[in-house]
Structures are given as structure tokens and as C-alpha cells.
């Protein structure tokens, strides 16, 4: 029974370590850094929390809205009568864009680089004929910032060896991803290690 207290303590410490490793606290080390160069405008500090929530909840409708606004802007060129609206739009857009930069910055960037990766893998994958049934293979990829693949590991096999092999062959044929120049924090957070799901049934 004497061991229980130190064991509990060690568990607590390890739990803390594991939580921080798994990014549970979402601490952005760069924002805490003393070497931060860009000063953060003061008014954003007040506004940001609300905007974050709004953006997360209705991010899609806003996108659509902005699309509409773009269309409106195009119409404006032929119809000067809506010029007043246009001015209000302009006054609103910079603020909106800025928000998206801060909050949705990575979401759009992630999908951009994801589709770059997807395109390159798909162009190299020669699906074997044995793809009847629901074959799915998940492979964990580790990259270095140049885009070079340094390790691949099957984390969920399909059960059909030739299918798994064809996925590994496709990755080997890619070798190194092109056009993956991105900010290093984005790379570290999402692209140093990610999972490729080979699922031809979709």
C-alpha cells in the first residue's frame, strides 16, 4: 500500500506528459515564444474569441455568402446603382479575410496540401484487379520538410497482400512529394506524419 502514492504521482506525471505529447492542450508554442516578431493588434484580442465560435459553427454558410458577394461584385460592374452596397462590402471584407487567416488558415491550407498529396499518389497507383469487395488499406506516412517520404507503415491492412503491396508500390513510386512548400508549423502539425487511406470503393 505504501507504493500507491508514488505510483499515483508517477501516473499523474506520465498522464500529463502523454496529454501534452498528444497535443491535447493545444498549446501553440510559437505564440508563446518571446521571439514573436509580428505584434498582435490589440482589438483582435477582444474580438477573436466570439469570431472563432461563429466561424466554426457556420463556416460553410459564410463561404457561400462570400461566394455570393463575389458574384454581386461582378454584377456591380454592369450596374452602378448597387455601388453603395459594394462599398459596405469592401469595408467588411478585409476584416473577414483577416479572421479566416487566423482561424481557418490551416483548414484551407490542409485541404490544399492534402489534395496535392492525393493527386500525386493517385497518379502513381495502379489498382490490382483484386479490388472486388470492400478493400481498404491504411498506411502511415512520415515525411521530411522537403516532401521526401522517409517511412511507410501499414496500420490497417486489407487482408489481400497484392492490394496492400500495390499501395506501398504507389507510395514508393511517388518517392518524394512535389509542391509541398508550407509554413513549418503547418508541416509539423499535420504533414510530418499522416495517414493515407486507400479506398477504391468510394
Amino acid at each position, binding site marked *: 500500500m505504501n507504493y500507491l502514492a508514488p505510483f499515483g504521482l508517477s501516473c499523474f506525471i506520465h498522464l500529463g506528459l*502523454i496529454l501534452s505529447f*498528444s497535443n491535447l492542450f493545444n498549446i501553440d508554442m510559437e505564440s508563446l515564444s518571446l521571439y514573436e516578431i509580428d505584434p498582435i493588434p490589440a482589438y483582435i484580442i477582444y474580438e477573436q474569441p466570439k469570431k472563432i465560435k461563429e466561424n466554426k459553427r457556420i463556416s460553410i454558410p459564410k463561404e457561400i455568402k462570400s461566394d455570393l458577394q463575389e458574384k454581386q461584385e461582378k454584377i456591380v460592374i454592369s450596374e452602378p446603382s448597387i455601388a453603395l452596397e459594394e462599398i459596405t462590402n469592401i469595408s467588411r471584407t478585409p476584416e473577414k479575410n483577416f479572421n479566416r487567416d487566423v482561424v481557418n488558415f490551416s483548414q484551407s491550407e*490542409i485541404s490544399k496540401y492534402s489534395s496535392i498529396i492525393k493527386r500525386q499518389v*493517385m497518379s*502513381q497507383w495502379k489498382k490490382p484487379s483484386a479490388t472486388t*469487395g470492400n478493400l481498404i488499406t491504411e498506411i502511415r506516412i512520415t515525411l521530411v520538410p522537403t516532401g521526401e517520404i522517409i517511412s511507410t507503415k501499414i496500420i490497417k491492412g486489407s487482408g*489481400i497482400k497484392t492490394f496492400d*503491396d500495390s499501395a506501398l508500390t504507389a507510395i514508393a513510386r511517388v518517392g518524394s512529394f512535389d509542391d509541398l512548400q508550407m509554413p513549418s508549423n503547418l508541416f509539423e502539425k499535420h504533414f510530418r506524419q*499522416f495517414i493515407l487511406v486507400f*479506398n477504391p470503393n468510394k
Partner: protein
Amino acid sequence: MKVLKSIFLILLFISSQSTLSQLRIEITGGAEDPINIAVVPIDWRLEFPQEEYLHEIIKDDLESFGEFKVLPPKGMLSFPSTEEEVFYRDWRLLNVDYLVVGHANKSEIEGELKISYFIFDIARERVIHKAIMSGSIKSIRRVAHNMSDKIYDKIQGIPGIFSTRLAYIDKPSADDKNYNLRISDIDGFNGISLFSSPQPIMSPNWSPLGDRMAYVSFEEGTSRIFIQTISTGTRSGIKLEKGINSSPNWSPNGARLAAVLSKEGNPDIFLYDLKRKNWSQITEHFGIDTEPDWSPDGKSLLFTSNRSGSPQIYQVNVRSKRVKRLTFEGTYNARARYSPDGRSIVFVHRRDGVFHIATQKIRSGKVRILTDTSLDESPTISPNGNVVIYATKRKDEDILAGITIDGKTKFILPSIRGEVREPAWSPILD
């Protein structure tokens, strides 16, 4: 201990969370281009020259369904014949996905040869298969087809079909006044006549082991089902019933034949027990039931029936005899065959007055038309489920044509000449 357990569970949960939160990118499709493969001429280490080049037969095999593109020897930078002689860089430069090299030696057995061969994955720089293939020097085509099958299997993950055979009927022509039941390789070579008769022959069907053939012959003036052993040629008619005796179809375990009899007045599906030599009735309906085909699991049969007014495909459970209609699109669906996985059927479907070969998923009922020719009939599916061969017409001539199940590659069998009908694909032969 409960505390420990809960802590452990929390840890487990967190570690699983962290993998779940990893970015997942879905790869939903691949490149459409064929697989590039190089087959280096096999190093022939026998004292006499080879009559037919192995690598050329393999090339023709692999290219026949459009899945592979084979690099010709004149485009190669080197001609390795062993594992040590392969430099991956050379082949990567040539944009090759897979490489086959090998050498042929005399076997200890008289009249046989041994081919040691290797299949390489160039991108991953590794041997994916190495083996020794032995066979008769006289039947070098057979050896090459066997090698093609192995290559296909190792790369595509399903058995190759290059050493399977095709049975078909050819009708009387100017040269030959007889009907012939013939068997040949699927590339049309090595054809033999199994049986010929001045009276019609119909509905050839392979036994599950590929050693025997069942068919209908009119040689006795009436339709009768015969079974013939391929290697010996011995044949015998099975128990004759009054009226039509037609469309024999072997059960997957080889013990029974499904067939059509009209002894009760109109055609129904019956089963013939080959051991007990007796018939038992499966369907009983005043409509015409015909063209049975066994499901791969041996539990049910497909058949064509006009019981709803137009020919449609039905499925009957052999044990419960419960009948279920499968096709609902169009007013003509007939001559259905199960795919080897039992999940879909291939059949003749009429759309806008034209007969096509179509395929349908049994569960979803989704119909997909495969062929764009007209008057297509008697589809037969390859034992790996990838290709359909069928009879069709070209300039009033009966020919055999084929199409891959994805509809991408079409071909005709030009080496099988004459008025040919009713192709039947053999099972995979050992």
C-alpha cells in the same frame, strides 16, 4: 486496482485519440494506364534452339485484356537472367513497374525443362516472387501460359486465366458438313475436336474439375444429354426422359447436373444425381423454365422463365425450392450466369430491340450493359471473374468476342474461325 484500471483506460483512450486526430487523406482511385512490365527474353540454356519464344507468348497473354503493357526487348538496356544481374535503376529509367527475368535449363526428367524465374517490383526494389516452373519441352506454350498465370496472380491478386480453355460449337460449313464440339486455349491455339456429328450439338458445360464435358446431342433423333471424358474421349448418354432433355449444368461439387426436362408437358428445371442416376424436380410452373446455372456455393440456381409474361431471370433455392425474380429492367433477360464470387450475374438483355450482354449486382439490382454490339448471346465468364466471352455476329458470320467486366477492353477471337457458337469457359485447370 480500480483506480489503476481507470488510469490505464484513460491512457489507452488518449493514445487512440492521438492517432485518430492524425490527418487522413483518402485515395479513392488509381491511374487508368496499364501496368508497365518488362519480360526479358528467357535465357535458354538447352542444347537445341527454342521453337517459340517464351517471352513472346507471355507478352501476348499479359496484353490480351489491356491490363498490362509489355516493354519489347529492343527497348531494354540490359538482359539479366538472374536476380544478381538486375539493376533497378535501369528499369526505373524505362518507367517499368514490374520486371520478369529467368533462365531455362534441362530437367533431370527426360523431355522436360525447368525455368527459374523472378518477378521484381521496381519501385520498391524487391523480388515479389521467385519459383521454378517445369513442363514438357513439347508443350512450351503451356509452360508459358502457366508462367503468365503466376505473373498475373502475383501482380493482380487474382488467378490468371491464360492456361484455361474454351469449349464451343461450330456449325456445318462448306469444309465440314458436321457440327463439332471443340476445345482450344483461350488464345485459339491447340484446338481439338471432342465430338462431331451431322446432327446438332448444343450447350457444352465443363465439370468443376475440367476433366469432363456435358452437352446435348441430337444424334439419336431427339435431344439427349451426354457426358464425355476429355482425356479418353469415352462418352455416355444420361437417363433419357420423354420430351426435351437440354441445358446441362454441373453442380460445383460435381455430383449433380441441373438440366431442363419437359416430361410433364412444359419445360421445368430438374436435377440429375450422377451417382444414383435419377431425376428430381426443382421448379414446377406452367411457364417455360430453362437455362439453369448453379451458384458457386451450390445452394441455388439461376434460370430463365417467362412466367411473368416475358423472359426474366429467376433464382431458386435448391433445398427450399423458393423462387425469387432477379431482373426487372426491360422485357427480355435470359441465359444468365453467376460471377465466380456469386455476387453478380451476366446475362443477355434486350434494350431498344437490340440484344446486349449486361451484368447486374444481385443485391442492388443495378444493371450495366457491357457490349455495344447487337445479337449478342451465350455469355460465359472467366473463372477469375474478370472477362466475359460471348457469341455475336459480324457481317452475318457467327464469331466469338470478349470484353473485360469493367467494360474497358474489347476483343474478338480471330483465331477461332468458322461459324462458332455457345462458348463455355473451363474452370482453372491444374
